[in-house]
């Protein structure tokens, strides 16, 4: 093993910056009076921006670090940007939220940063143990965040449910990792790929390891049937936390699935493909169908998040089916996740605002007539929902288009048909909120106070991003292709 060098530390610069900032915020918290906790938010935001700058700077030093357990490659870099974006938007969305809900705990920001750190480690890890450590760091922080509204029973329930089921799932992942180590003698993805692709080297019990690992990661991305926690947790957790939960750990887990199942374990072809194919099918259909019956916006968006995971899995199945030309499928997955991050975080933080103090107003009907009290807010939510349902000119459409293109290219016509039909079903439930806002008579119960400026800034940023990705996706497609290229 090569000795640790300074270069190794540069290659985990974003994680170091985030972790240091998190510790700083945590230690500073008791010294800051309750009225000034917002200051910690700005410190955290600076930390996130600094981590982003670090991520940009270290592009010149890409390569493996710490004996091959971390890789600073374009793939990791892409995901780190994505995660930082999600964290920054969440942060902007939660500043006033915490004030309205009388939660004066600066630890919120520290935990948010730590959750992001864990997720960043996950996406950069090329070693199963490292992946597990990253997963745990990010999970434990988010478990606590989910229960952050301590006086609220639903929040407690969300926290406990997430914690218990999450630990259960990570145990599966660990068991899978143990199996892989037992079968091949390594946990390094590069070595794993070499060992497995050697002729005649197919350990007999590899399928068990694969399924166990998939269960563990499937929980994090909430694929059906490992999604049951999602609606309850997303509904119970504070809405900005849900925004973060629905994007950051999910994107990170998708990155891990890409690295592990299309990188390290790529030679176990057919099984991986069918795992992805079946979970894509189930996840899309169940997520969308279950969402049809939801009247609670948070729950509705939770099921929609499940459904979106299904579309992402379509892209993965396409990448897997395309064999050596997997790059296109992977790039489509990366693009989709970026679009999804923008739309979903923005939607949840906006819902956090609308739900008012104590998150009392979460029903679609609570927004009745909102369009005439707060036309800007209503238009904003409408645009987000329109993007989520995949209408053209928005990021949601191009992301779907790109994924479906990869799927058709890989001759997954049946799966693509199911996917497009699902997106029609989805229109119905997304529009339910729009109908309430624009077409029903009455006064909104939802908070009609003006948007606080940090939230407004976050939403403006997301909307600009959504339309930029929808209308001029070329630079981003290039980026995604660049990030996807070193993987297979």
């Amino acid at each position: 093993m090569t000795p640790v060098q300074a270069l190794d530390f540069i290659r985990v610069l974003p994680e170091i910056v985030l972790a240091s900032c998190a510790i700083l915020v945590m230690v500073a918290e008791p010294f800051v009076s309750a009225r000034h906790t917002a200051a910690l938010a700005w410190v955290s935001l600076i930390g996130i921006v600094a981590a982003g700058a670090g991520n940009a700077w270290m592009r010149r030093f890409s390569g493996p670090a710490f004996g091959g357990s971390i890789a600073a490659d374009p793939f990791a870099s892409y995901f780190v940007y994505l995660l930082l974006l999600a964290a920054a938007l969440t942060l902007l969305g939660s500043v006033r939220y915490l004030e309205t809900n009388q939660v004066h705990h600066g630890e919120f920001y520290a935990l948010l940063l730590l959750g992001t750190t864990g997720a960043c480690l996950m996406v950069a890890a090329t070693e199963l143990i490292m992946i597990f450590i990253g997963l745990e760091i990010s999970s434990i922080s988010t478990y606590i965040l989910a229960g952050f509204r301590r006086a609220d029973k639903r929040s407690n329930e969300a926290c406990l449910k997430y914690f218990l089921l999450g630990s259960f799932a990570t145990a599966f992942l660990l068991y899978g990792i143990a199996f892989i180590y037992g079968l091949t003698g390594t946990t390094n993805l590069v070595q794993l790929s070499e060992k497995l692709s050697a002729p005649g080297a197919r350990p007999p019990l590899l399928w068990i390891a694969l399924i166990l690992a998939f269960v563990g990661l499937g929980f994090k991305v909430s694929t059906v049937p490992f999604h049951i926690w999602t609606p309850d947790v997303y509904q119970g957790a504070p809405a900005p936390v849900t925004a973060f939960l629905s994007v950051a750990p999910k994107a990170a887990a998708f990155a891990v699935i890409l690295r592990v199942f299309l990188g390290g374990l790529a030679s176990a072809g057919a099984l991986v493909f069918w795992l992805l194919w079946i979970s894509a099918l189930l996840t899309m259909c169940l997520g969308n169908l279950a969402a049809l019956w939801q009247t609670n916006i948070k729950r509705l968006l939770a099921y929609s998040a499940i459904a979106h995971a299904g579309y992402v899995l379509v892209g993965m199945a396409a990448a897997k089916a395309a064999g050596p030309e997997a790059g296109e499928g992977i790039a489509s997955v990366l693009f989709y996740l970026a679009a999804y991050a923008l739309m979903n975080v923005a939607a949840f933080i906006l819902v956090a605002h609308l739900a008012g103090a104590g998150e009392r107003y979460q029903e679609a009907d609570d927004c009745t007539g909102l369009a005439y009290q707060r036309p800007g807010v209503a238009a904003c939510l409408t645009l987000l929902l329109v993007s989520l349902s995949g209408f053209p000119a928005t990021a949601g459409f191009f992301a779907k288009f790109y994924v479906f293109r990869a799927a058709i290219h890989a001759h997954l016509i049946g799966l693509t048909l199911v996917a497009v039909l699902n997106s029609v079903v989805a229109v119905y439930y997304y529009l339910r909120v729009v109908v309430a806002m624009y077409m029903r008579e009455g006064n909104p119960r939802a908070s009609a106070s003006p948007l606080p400026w940090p939230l407004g800034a976050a939403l403006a940023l997301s909307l600009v991003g959504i339309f930029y990705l929808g209308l001029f996706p070329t630079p981003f497609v290039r980026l995604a292709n660049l990030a996807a290229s070193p993987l297979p």
Partner: protein
Amino acid sequence: MSHILTILTFLPLVGATVVAFIPRTATAKIRWVALVTSLVTLAWGIGLFLGFDLHHPGLQFVENYPWIESPPVAYHLGVDGLSVLLLLLTVFLAPLAILASWRSIGERVKEFHLLMLALETGMNGVFVAQDLFLFFVFWEAMLIPMYFLIGIWGHERRIYAAVKFILYTMLGSALMLVAILYLYNATGTLELPAILAQLSGPAPPISPKGARWLFLAFFLAFAIKVPLFPLHTWLPDAHVEAPVAGSVILAGVLLKMGTYGILRFCLPLFPEASRQFAPVISVLAVIGILYGSLVSMVQPDLKKLVAYSSVAHLGFVVLGIFAFNPMGLEGAIYQMCNHGVSTGALFILVGMLYDRRHTRLISEFGGLSSVLPVLGAFFLFVTLSSLGLPMLNGFVGEFLIILGAFHRRALYGALAATGVVLAAVYLLWMYQRVFLGEVRSEKNRALADCSGREKLILTAMAAVILGMGVYPQPFLRRLDQSVAEVLARVQPGEEAALVFGSPKGWNDASRVATSSATTFHAPWLLPLPGPERERGPLDLTRDSRRELRDAAPAELKGIAGVACTPGEAPRAGMNRR
């Protein structure tokens, strides 16, 4: 490259942006900005119509810029005769729709006009896009303003109607998206002319079986929009529940997008499949005509009656398209425009009645022509146009379609002709019940007749109806090239009939045409005297042929004593592509 089409498409969107910055209380300002924007767009559209080069095969006013790198999407705009006609229809109806809503839309005026203008951009975009991706973007983006128009300003069941409308259309377009992706995967391009070139080349990249599936995927999307029986159930709901402007645009333009799509994509891209499915589709179209007419007859609600009559009229259009001959096709396209104007006018008239009485039930009216003489006169005029009275626009289209259908299969023609009779029955009966006889209800006695604004709208529409009926040549002439190109793909040889005359059964038909034309003093339908007698009535006038002859390449002149005719031009054009 000029930016004529870009300006035409996005001008309304600029207007919408301006509207967005006007305070919502300044309703008069908002209305005027919207109206002026749509009028400027109309002027621009007329300019486009006049500037359209009759002798130029293929697309005109082309703008082609790369837009997205991978997949290679181009911002590719262009128009042919078909697009030009429908664009003109769109930009004509938009200001009228805005004007028709001047009084009836009192709430949320800002949102209304914003959405109307955005909708106009979407509609124009659909007709000019030559890239499948771009087409799909406009096709779907346009749904959202329409959805809001129905859902916010509609009547009692507006939400149901709006959701039904959007879900039906989305269902079709979802399948179309898969088909587009499949086509892209097979051909490596999303640009329509390039795909067309590959599919019509010696080694098409798609198997006949694949083409059948793709045809169905595209066709389903368009058939829902048309709507073809039995996919029409969204239409009565949407049309009835929509506000006046919504109904006008829905009936006037949105339905045409279905038939436009069939002509633009289904037929040229998958000619083999089109021929295979033509009998089934024709039968469905005939069922649509009869069903729509019969159901119209029993409607107690004026708007519903007009809505169902649309099902019948669009049945005519589809029947004409799938006749695969020049008469049918030109008639179908002409009928698309006629239906847009006439039915749009009917919806506006019904809206005017609704504004006065707040009901649309036929039984509530009666004897109105004594109270509202001007409105009654216009109503009669538009009704007659809709049922296809000679001299008015509806006649030309329906007549040509029936002619084409006869030519394809006499039974279709006969049944379609029954539809014309039925149309006369339900429309005239409706007119009789609403306007003739005694004034039965006291409420109807004190109604005010047309205001100046209303007269303006109705006069404009009546003028167009009359103009299109008396002098269809400027419109039909612009279609020749497009029709010839479609026919060359789907029924090679038929496009010759456009020029060289004498298709089977033509002589009988032309005799009918002659007699009716003489009866109604419609000289444009008279066969030309002399050696040109053999030529069809659709043909170019003698003058324009002379122009063509002069402009033709030397080697084409004097072939068997026949002057150069537009039939050659498109083929030459296609080779050039």
